[in-house]
């Protein structure tokens, strides 16, 4: 057998899965219950969306369930193109030929819907929605990030099933079982190290185990010490600590080579943390200046394809920040995740609403969308906050939806009121 251990040691039944009773037990029961509900006719939610980080058994759950209960699995995933027409052809057809024909029960699995991308898979999400509406057999969707705004419509028609990262204490026994099957005598602390570093990702733990243990008879803590960190935050904290406490330029710059995040990401971390770490205003200003210059070098390097300039950017981003410290006393302050990145993903939906709104104004008022945001939206805001009746009229005229109205009112209750007045469907 030469297949990787992740396949070789795949559970045959749901009960063999890591965390099937505790850990993700609830989610698994929820899924089974939903599948069972099909036995007494088409349920209200005709699709389930299983979501959670990689390597915790989402796909495995569906596959194993199908095998255990005799379902034919019709599957589409990211390695297939998933444009509107393909989904219509494959899913649409299958979901129509219900169990009336043929003998087997069918289950449609649309894996990795995070990977349905704009251009290549145009209209894919729309086609899925439509398929769910028409289906007569269960459709299961799997995603890492279910809260992506693109999935908003899907969320409302799906049974939402969340699976979580698995705790170390559940992963270790599982690894141990594999070692037994492979005839390896593994120490608990070695397995614990592997499990911890996988951060709840069972599959990566098994991969690391294979890389470290394959061919050995014994596995000790020393044998796995070399294993690289699988991530993530701890490592970046170390790098930041080095940068913020360095006394020399070279010392600070050294941190860069230890970093496993690329320099653009590291920049975000430093940029976020400067005002928290350097509390003296003059220190903080010097560091922000260094970062502003770093940013300029980074952008010029990219614009002019003059990559040599990166080197200066690195000096300023590390040494420049390190040496900005003059009066700030060294004191342990926890590092913060770059807010800006969080904000950008959190506000993606808002920004989409905003740009839709700008488009609508633009078409009605013969101006650019930038000018719509700058010259019209502020006045609309006043009107929407002050005069629901007037606002409703404008909402109707601009054909605004509830989200767009809420964007203008900044107040959901008021938005509801205006929407009702304007006769906007929810």
């Amino acid at each position: 057998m030469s297949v990787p251990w992740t396949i070789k040691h795949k559970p045959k039944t749901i009960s063999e899965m890591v965390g099937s009773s505790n850990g993700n037990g609830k989610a698994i029961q929820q899924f089974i219950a939903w599948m069972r509900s099909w036995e007494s006719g088409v349920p209200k939610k005709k699709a389930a969306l299983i979501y959670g980080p990689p390597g915790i058994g989402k796909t495995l759950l569906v596959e194993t369930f199908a095998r255990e209960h005799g379902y034919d699995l019709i599957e589409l995933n990211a390695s297939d193109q998933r444009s509107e027409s393909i989904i219509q052809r494959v899913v649409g057809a299958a979901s129509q030929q219900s169990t009336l024909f043929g003998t087997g029960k069918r289950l449609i699995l649309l894996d990795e819907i995070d990977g349905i991308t704009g251009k290549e898979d145009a209209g894919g999400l729309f086609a899925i929605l439509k398929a769910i509406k028409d289906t007569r057999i269960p459709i299961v969707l799997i995603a890492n990030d279910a809260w992506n705004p693109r999935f908003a419509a899907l969320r409302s028609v799906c049974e939402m099933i969340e699976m979580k990262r698995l705790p170390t204490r559940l992963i270790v026994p599982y690894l141990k079982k594999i070692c037994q099957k492979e005839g390896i005598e593994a120490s608990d602390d070695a397995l614990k190290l592997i499990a911890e570093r996988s951060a709840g990702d069972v599959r990566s733990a098994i991969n690391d185990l294979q890389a470290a243990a394959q061919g050995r008879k014994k596995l000790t803590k020393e044998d796995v010490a070399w294993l690289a960190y699988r991530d993530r935050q701890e490592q970046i904290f170390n790098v930041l600590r080095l940068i913020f406490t360095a006394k020399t330029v070279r010392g600070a710059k050294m941190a860069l080579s230890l970093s496993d995040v690329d320099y653009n990401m590291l920049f975000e971390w430093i940029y976020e943390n400067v005002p928290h770490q350097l509390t003296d205003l003059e220190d903080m200003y010097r560091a922000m200046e260094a970062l502003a210059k770093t940013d300029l070098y980074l952008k010029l390097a990219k614009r002019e394809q003059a990559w040599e300039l990166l080197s200066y950017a690195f000096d300023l981003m590390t040494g420049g920040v390190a040496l900005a410290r003059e009066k700030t006393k060294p004191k342990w302050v926890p590092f913060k995740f770059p807010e800006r990145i969080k904000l950008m993903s959190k506000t993606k939906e808002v920004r989409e609403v905003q740009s839709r709104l700008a488009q609508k104004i633009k078409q009605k008022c013969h101006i650019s969308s930038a000018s719509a945001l700058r010259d019209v939206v502020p006045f609309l805001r006043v009107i929407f906050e002050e005069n629901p009746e007037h606002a409703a009229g404008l909402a109707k005229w601009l054909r605004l939806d509830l989200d767009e109205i809420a964007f203008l009112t900044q107040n959901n209750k008021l938005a509801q009121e205006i929407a009702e007045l304007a006769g906007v469907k929810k």
Partner: protein
Amino acid sequence: MSFEMWTEKYRPKTLDDMLDQEEIVSRLKTFVKTKTMPHCLFAGPPGTGKTTAALCLARDLYGENYTEYFMELNASDERGINVVRERIKNFARTRAIGEVPFKIMVLDEADNMTADAQQALRRTMERYTETCRFILICNYSSKIIEPIQSRTALFRFMPLQEEYCIKWIQMIAEKEGVSLTEEGIRAIIDVCGGDLRKATNTLQAAAAFGGVVDDKAVYTVIGRAHPKEIREMIKLAISGNFVEAREKLRALLVNYGLSGLDVVRQIHSEILRMDIPERVKIELADATGEVDFRISQGADEEVQLSALLAKMAVVGGRM
């Protein structure tokens, strides 16, 4: 109940309706009469009727179905000259059917196009000159490249006369049943200058309060329509509260959808208005200029503006 943006509701429909820019209107009318026209360049400040004039011209030429023969593109919205070219091609390649042998393509904010893009545009204009006339609209005619300027008839839109603006605003107020005081109208004019769009929007927003539109109502609208966050942000920064100032900045850029340049401009104005020593003002104005320059070079808006806030924090601390 029907409400529209009053700017649209009262936008003149025909050249006859346009009561300002008389000279320009009369030149445009001869185009209608002779059913012929050159490529045009409409230049002038915002809100002086450039787009309206183009729309009226089109309606007078083609009648109510004018949208079949008339297309409006905003240069600053379209990604890349290729998109522009493509859309122009699709529009211009078929000949207009009817009395008027050409279509009209309006390109707004043409001064936002790069020189290269304008060169490409020039060639496109040349290619479709048989079937299509171009009206380029811009604020600064000086930013239009020479070869295009020399191929277009220039129409320079002047800022509107105060009396004209007053009359216009009063007319709308009357028709909409808004009671507008003398002080209210003065305030609108003071704040909006000759920008009719802004004046009309201000009136509409002030009317939304429900009561009489007086100067107080007008200033309330203006105060709220201008994100006070900018002033607050500066105050926070100067009082040493950098982290909060940066959060405000983020909100402006992300939630309000302001561009970095918008923020730079407003900061610049605020600084010059602030009650701080002259020397400090200049230092900050200088720094703002530098930030503006860097952003124009492609630097990150937030990072650069943050550095400026940091500077304010230091300057404030020393004050």
